[in-house]
């Protein structure tokens, strides 16, 4: 990081550039584009959790005069199993295709079977009923524990467990196993004065983005095809879609619309390849929009888990051993976030002896997608609940026991490297010194504290800054803005160029305008795309200095850049950015700065949350009384949007802890695919979330930035779980803590 300096623009709470369009309704989202001659696509979905398709006859639908095209799995070019990087990490191409349209077998309620494009939405809906499908129903398995049994119904007869010492000879629902170990776990437990172990359950949950998946596409046989869609990563939509349909990347333009929430759920493709097939077959532009029920049944929720954790500690609170067995549901195809779960579960602590074993398991539910710090909330929930129980047993303050064991600079993580400077201790101290933590509780109220960790990532970003003849700038980035990142890019460019932020207009460009950009995810955008912005701005400054040097007939090295002005150090003369840009036509043409990077050195982020919950002893209803979210941002570029990330993560975590869950019937049918029955927290349910920003700079970023988008969802599960346990006098091992579950636990509590 550059040496400490005063910032002129960074740290301001400027108005976001996209704000006016959004609050006035002018912003265009996924479903907002219509094209001349456009027709509508709809998907026929499985009514069964697991079944063989014995007959699929579309002939009656084809004869409907309003039907323009029908797509089935057979319309994909030949697809084989092949790992490729797209959006949320490595994806198997064959699994992706079979998830988008079933290949002879449906694997979950809502699994897409075929799609119809028709002149109107109503005709498309009507035509779906003309498709004749017959099924041979197969036994289904809905829970990770059941799916891991030897005699469980198998989803795939070609799935063999990876990561076992010996190559298995029988297929299994366990797609992968991994382990991490450090020190001597047996000796660690032998050294402990107190040992606590428990198994925890977390349910399938949804990211709960308000905007459903939507796209409008136009296939061009000879020219460039176009996809307009709501996504966190349009370059990866292009990569996945082109790979599936065997198209050249240059023949597919993907435009990212504004996005109404994603949280990891919009990092893959569902509708886009299907609508392109329909467009190709019909010769018409095609629009497809999921309804809310489809979003719940057939997009990618967050993984359900059954996680066992055992921790040993000395009487003084020093942890001597930490062990976990983490079982993650992947949904119908392999690829749960079991890996990051194993890598994060104990990272907040400096521990000598640890052992973690993880399992990635397929079940008859939709294929999971990323959800904010994927895998970490479930694993760290289990660890933090056990730590709070140990603290209670030993009579040690829950913040003090964490301070005693906290990871710090030099701590060797279980997943490998030693940590650089991190801010966990600062977060713990900020919470301990907060008014919130010192405030007294009333009857039937309880308090919970939990820590959380997420790695954050870097990755590829490409940015150009076009200087206009009047000295203003257009900042062209390729990272969809899901949390106010345009404002952050604007401030970082202003800081580097030293020109006013409101003279810089950031835009998110389509895939034809810029080189590849990684998906907005992994808390990477302000960090990585920000570094590309800085590089592009430095490129602009270099050229500005060269232009001024040419005017003064000196060398560029004899020109300084001060407060947005070129200063001649070899004589007299100052030229502002406005003056240089106005004369650019006479000094070599217009000025464009470029920054194309693959950012490394992402700074991990720790958080600590405090939750106060009140429990109604007659009904089991809970109420969040007060909540504080404290997190290390490295450097908060735009404090309001950093606070917004903390608050948003906390609210989603509170919902996960208190209410949210997929409820399936015994037949494996989702019973609550709507926001009335799948209850996310509303503004009226919660107090203002107090956000405390800690700033321990990331040494690898010019301004010290760490990603902040994900860590905030990690601590709430255990903070809320512990608060409810303390308020109600119960032992909490299962989420969500809905009123019936809390009431039942209170009625049978022996705690």
């Amino acid at each position, binding site marked *: 990081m550059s040496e400490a300096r005063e910032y002129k623009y960074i740290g301001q709470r400027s108005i976001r550039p996209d704000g006016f369009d959004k609050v006035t309704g002018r912003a265009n989202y996924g479903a907002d584009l219509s094209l001349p001659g456009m027709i509508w696509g709809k998907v026929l979905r499985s009514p069964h959790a697991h079944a063989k398709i014995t007959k699929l006859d579309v002939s009656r639908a084809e004869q409907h005069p309003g039907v323009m095209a029908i797509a089935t799995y057979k319309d994909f070019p030949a697809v084989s199993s092949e790992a490729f990087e797209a959006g*949320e990490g490595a994806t198997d191409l064959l699994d992706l295709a079979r998830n988008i349209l079933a290949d002879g077998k449906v694997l979950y309620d809502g699994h897409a079977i075929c799609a119809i494009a028709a002149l109107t939405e109503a005709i498309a809906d009507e035509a779906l009923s003309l498709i004749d499908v017959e099924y041979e129903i197969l036994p289904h398995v809905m829970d990770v524990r059941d799916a891991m049994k030897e005699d469980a119904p198998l989803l795939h007869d070609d799935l063999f467990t990876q990561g076992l010492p010996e190559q298995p000879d029988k297929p299994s629902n366990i797609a992968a196993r991994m382990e991490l*170990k450090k020190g001597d776990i047996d000796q660690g437990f032998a050294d402990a004065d107190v040992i606590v172990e428990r198994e925890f359950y977390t349910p399938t949950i949804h990211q709960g983005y308000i905007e459903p998946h939507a796209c409008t596409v136009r296939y061009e046989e000879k020219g460039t095809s176009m996809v307009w869609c709501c996504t966190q990563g349009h370059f990866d939509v292009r990569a996945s879609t082109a790979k599936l349909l065997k198209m050249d990347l240059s023949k597919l333009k993907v435009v990212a619309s504004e996005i109404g929430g994603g949280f990891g759920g919009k990092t893959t493709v569902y509708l886009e390849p299907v609508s392109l097939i329909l467009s190709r077959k019909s010769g018409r532009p095609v629009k497809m929009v999921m309804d809310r029920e489809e979003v719940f049944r057939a997009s990618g929720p967050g993984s359900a888990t059954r996680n066992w954790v055992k921790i040993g500690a000395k009487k003084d609170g020093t942890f001597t051993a930490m062990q976990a067995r983490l079982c993650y549901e992947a949904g119908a195809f392999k690829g749960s976030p079991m890996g990051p779960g194993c890598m994060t579960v104990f990272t907040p602590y400096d521990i000598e002896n640890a052992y973690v074993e993880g399992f990635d398991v397929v079940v008859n539910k939709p294929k999971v997608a990323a959800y904010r710090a994927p895998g970490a909330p479930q694993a760290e929930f289990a660890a933090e609940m056990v730590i709070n129980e140990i603290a209670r047993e030993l009579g040690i303050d829950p913040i003090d026991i964490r301070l005693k064991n906290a990871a710090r600079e030099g701590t060797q993580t279980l997943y490998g490297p030693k940590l650089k400077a991190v801010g966990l201790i600062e977060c713990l101290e900020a919470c301990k010194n907060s008014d919130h933590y010192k405030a007294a509780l009333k009857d039937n109220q309880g308090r919970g504290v939990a820590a959380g960790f997420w790695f954050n990532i870097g990755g590829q970003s490409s940015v150009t800054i076009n200087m206009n003849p009047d000295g203003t700038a257009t900042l062209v980035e390729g990272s969809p803005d899901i949390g106010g990142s345009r404002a952050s890019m604007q401030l970082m460019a202003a800081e580097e160029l030293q020109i006013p932020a409101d003279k810089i207009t950031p835009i998110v460009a389509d895939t034809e305008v810029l080189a590849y950009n990684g998906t907005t995810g992994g808390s990477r955008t302000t960090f990585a795309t920000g570094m590309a912005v800085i590089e592009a701005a430095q490129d602009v400054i270099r050229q500005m200095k060269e232009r001024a040097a040419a005017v003064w007939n000196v060398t560029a090295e004899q020109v300084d850049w001060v407060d947005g002005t070129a200063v001649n150090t070899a004589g007299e003369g100052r030229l502002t950015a406005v003056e240089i840009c106005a004369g650019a036509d006479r000094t070599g043409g217009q000025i464009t700065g470029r920054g194309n990077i693959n950012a490394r050195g992402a700074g991990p982020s720790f958080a600590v949350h405090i939750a106060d919950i009140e429990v109604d002893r007659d009904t089991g209803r809970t109420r969040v009384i007060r909540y504080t979210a404290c997190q290390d941002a490295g450097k908060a570029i735009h404090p309001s949007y950093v606070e917004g990330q903390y608050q948003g993560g906390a609210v989603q975590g509170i919902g996960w802890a208190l209410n949210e869950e997929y409820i399936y019937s015994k037949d494996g049918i989702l019973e609550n695919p709507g926001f009335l029955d799948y209850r996310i927290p509303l503004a009226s349910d919660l107090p203002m979330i107090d956000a405390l920003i800690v700033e321990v700079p990331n040494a690898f970023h010019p301004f010290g930035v760490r990603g902040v988008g994900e860590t905030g969802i990690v601590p709430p599960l255990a903070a809320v779980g512990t608060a409810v346990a303390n308020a109600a006098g119960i032992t909490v091992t299962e989420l969500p803590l809905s009123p019936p579950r809390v009431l039942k636990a209170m009625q049978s509590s022996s705690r």
Partner: protein
Amino acid sequence: MATVIFSSELQRLTGEEKTIVDAGTYRELVDKITTRYKDLERDEIMKMAVAIDGEIIHDPLLESVGDNSEVHFLYRISGG
């Protein structure tokens, strides 16, 4: 000389927890350890991320490795 520390998964293939490698670049380091440990497949290693002195790098092909560097291979991390 860099110290390469293997995860428990990789230890199954190397039979040891760590090794010392004389390498100036990441490419050279991978060449040497895949020659030393026949069960370590170069393609699989090259798909992994790496942490060199605590800095996580997803695409390390052209990275240099210091005399006293500590190197860990990691699963690539994505996010939401």
